[in-house]
């Protein structure tokens, strides 16, 4: 890493949702603040800023990560994905998102982007994920509205659908 000065803003280049971006940030700036307030992608939410609630979860190089525990400077050269990248096009939901809508997997929607990013990574890595895998991954997220049952249901439905897709495509 280059030497940096605490009082100055430094440029960061990385890939965000498939596009190269360049942003400026002080060393102490959190990735969550960079995404939300410098770049303007407000889909990533902040619920605790100490790594417990999971609302800020994004994907860094394919792996779920807490944007509130990541310094903006740490994503230099990385591939960052946020909830804004999940839908295949602006008028269409991804199968996971559609399953959330169908099964009432959200109420206020504040926890939802983080949960979607975790589940999206899980289903990509483990297409065979079952109820217990899903519950385990969800246990890193707090939702105060739904009582979780409908989230699990939505995730299971999306996993099921994804498996069907794959068999038909195979």
């Amino acid at each position, binding site marked *: 890493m280059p030497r940096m000065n605490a009082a100055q803003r430094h440029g960061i280049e990385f890939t965000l949702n498939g596009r190269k971006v360049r942003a400026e940030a002080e060393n102490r700036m959190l990735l969550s603040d960079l995404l939300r307030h410098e770049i303007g992608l407000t889909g990533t939410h902040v619920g605790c800023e100490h790594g417990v609630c999971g609302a800020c979860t994004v994907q860094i190089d394919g792996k779920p990560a807490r944007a509130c525990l990541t310094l903006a400077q740490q994503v230099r050269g990385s591939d960052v994905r946020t909830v804004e990248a999940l839908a295949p096009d602006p008028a269409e939901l991804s199968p996971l998102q559609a399953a959330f*809508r169908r099964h009432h997997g959200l109420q206020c929607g504040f926890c939802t982007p983080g949960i979607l990013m975790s589940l999206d990574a899980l289903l990509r890595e483990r297409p065979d994920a079952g109820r217990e895998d899903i519950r385990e991954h969800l246990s890193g997220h707090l939702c*105060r509205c739904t*009582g979780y049952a409908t989230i699990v249901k939505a995730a299971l439905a999306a996993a099921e659908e994804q498996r069907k897709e794959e068999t038909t495509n195979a």
Partner: protein
Amino acid sequence: MTRLKTAGALIGHTVERVEDAGLLTGRGRYIDDLPVRRDTAHLAILRSPHGHAEIRSIDTAAARALPGVFAVLTGDDVARLTRSMTVGVKANVECWPIARDRVRYVGEPVALVVAENRYVAEDALDLIEVDYETLPAVVDPEKALAEDAPVLHPSLGTNLINERSFRYGDPEAAFAAAAHRVSIRIAYPRNSCTPIETYGVIADYDPGEDAYDVTANFQGPFSIHAVISRALNVPGNRMRLRTPPDSGGSFGIKQGVFPYVILAAVAARVAGRPVKWIEDRLEHLTASVSATNRVTTLEAAVAADGRIAALSWDQLEDCGAHLRAPEPATLYRMHGNMTGAYAIENVAIRNRVVLTNKTPTGLNRGFGGPQVYFALERLVHKIADELGLDRLAVIRRNLVPANAFPYRTATGGLLDSGDYQTAIDRACAEGGLQSLQQRRDAARAEGRLYGIGYAAVVEPSVSNMGYITTVLTPEERAKAGPKNGAQAVATVAIDPLGSVTVKVASVPQGQGHRTVLAQVVAERLGLPLEAVRVNTELDTARDAWSIASGNYASRFAAAVAGAAALAADRIRDRLAAIAAAQLNVTADRIDFGAGKLFDRDNSDNAISFGRVAAASHWAPGTLPDGTGQTIRETVFWTPEQLEAPTATDGINSSLCHGFIFDICGVEIDRATGHVRIDRYVTMHDCGRILHPGMVDGQVRGGFAQAVGAALYEEYAYGGDGSFLTGTLADYLIPTVMETPEPLILHHETPSPFTPLGAKGVGEGNCMSTPVSIANAVADALGVEDIRLPLSPSRVSEWLYVEERPSSKPQDVAPVATGASGERLLTGAGSADVVATRESVWTMLLDPNTLKAIIPGAHEVRKVSDTHFRAEVTLGIGPVKGRYRADIRLSDMIAPEAVTLSGGTEGALGSGRGTGRVTLTETATGTRIDYRYEAAIGGKVASVGGRLLDGAARVVIGQFFQALARHAGGGGPPSAAAGLIQRIANVFRRRG
């Protein structure tokens, strides 16, 4: 009232929510997502680290001088531009949103900084120096009443801010005649439903018009708008309050943002630019708002068959450091329902409200219900046990009979509808009570701990805005004038292209109001769901609203959706008249469907909705005489049943009364004390169901929060007022792993008092579930004094310590607290260093060495030979702060031993402690042994023991590590030792 007819096409069906596409794709617009003016600055708040202290002085000079800071305000600056907030009882106290000469709870605002961004604003907080003189604190409501208790508000002279007694029927005679008297004492803890989105405010001030414009994720009730305007000293029309399109949950809590609306508004005025404040989680947990904790004694006069003739309530309500509007509403919200689901004719009530050194309370899902039902349903359980009766039989014997509705309760409530007996019968049958009982018996036969609990609960909804005046005496009420009702408002508007927009003042936080309103209005106008758009943002300067507006007291389905249906019907009647003229039929033959208006007897004779709907805009002259416009219809609806309190203190505190019956099966792990919910059945009667998916969503969400309240969550305080659960690692919210799935059943008895027959449903499980779990645990363990939360450590105490019969609840005793309730840390250890005792001794007393080796030290000054002052920055978990430390040396035996004692104070907390350091000669140098005992209070203590104990060990370890490094680097006695050996010897920690 006459029930509205519905075609049944949309209402009652689970349709996909119109809200979801935006929320799922990251396009929600929550408060922190909204665009702001380019010159908007950020507000950060310095908060009290003490539960109770006088403020001697505040020095803001360094903060003001920091580049990027626009303004710094203290309590006096705020007070110059505002007035004290209205207090809901007659009492000689002021209530400010920021401390002035005294702090009364940890987290109370002390100073405000406005700066170019949040980072700089928080830097500036660290530069503000506040000199406190700490006072003894009181956190226990019963102790707060003691003669010698510290008094929070000298002007009041006591901590008892309000007391009222009530009498309904003839309770004395009923008690005198009763075969049995059974009583129970309960201490209900503090908790909060903690939304995942915290508070947020964006405020601006226009000096030209002396007007404020504030956007906040406030949830209502908008009666608070009057409190804000008065505090800001402007008429209501100069206090524009708006809400963002989306809100990340509230559950009552976001009512409590209003003091920050006042603070941000004043800060914007002083800074001369818009100000934005987004609360962080530590602030939220420490200082937003919580439910009340309450100590209740409840006694029943009972006949031999279990029939309850009278209840006597003694409720001691702890509202925290200030009585903030609308408190003491938590205590009075249930006033018409103090007999629960039971027909009990005689009731005595004593209500006392006390102030303690804790965060002021406010709305929280369940609002007063959990506290009341915990006492009532534990008591019913106990009555059965004491009389040797079946618990379910005692519940059944006392229920309000099915043919008695609408039923007037002893305290003045009017239960609108219900069939409690059938609901319970169905819950037992469909919920499998018999097999559950077999399961329990089988478990017990194997020696396992298994219990079953019940709770029967009436869930009030649509609050009477006048109920809170029951806290005043009838004479005081007569003087103040009557207060009552609950205005709900909805507007249906049609634009020039004939499309329909609905506007309501319901301020949802995730409940799907837009979807339900589209369902209701689309169905009445014969349109597809997508044809109706709903806007729920509220702007007090533009929209129709009233004091009851907002989202609380489960009023949406019953009141707001009903008002929308009434507005749609008014437009519908006029559209029918217009269509009738064009189709040459009478208006009563016009029907609506598939986007058309048509002759019911000849559906080919039809005209498109858009055409009829647009006529008012394009050709008003063609409308039949007397039809009136169809452009916009606003309906205000308030139910006649919500009357002001009577001269004898009778109050119908809510319009609707749902019913819940819960059955809970728990198993308790004998080894760990862990409570596992094995089975949970929850039967609901919420009147007519408008959207089954959303109703079940409300039930599940409330249930999960109630599981948290029963098993994990507590806002815990140390005896000195320090707050101990300031992170989500300390305040434990259930995750998916801790949340069982309940079996949800419904039994619908529509409300005769609401336009759609619906009742509220959102809060019921927060009232019923904690006590049904507690009853199940009581059944499993045979323990009477069940206290929440049922943490494994608490349950283990009951398992392993002999249970002494005690009717008095013990003090809430948080873990690991010192004499004055701070968090205690102790530790010991030793380190070997490669240096003589003398040189180690000299180093320990040399400020320059100390500066180099104290972790995070910026400066160490020697005041005298035995007195040092240090400035350090320490990070513990998420809490990083700057501290000033005073260290004194005593019992010095050079070069063998010294005692260090001292105190430290910073924005994040305070500590004091002593440590004894002894130096012993060893073959390679010196061994340093140390023992310490420290007590920590303030914000740092709230990060919890887990982090703190570890952090203290690390910091102290680092100190000696650095000392060893320092010593190892400097000469004898190891000058002869080789480099390798020296490195190896440098630091061997033991202990």
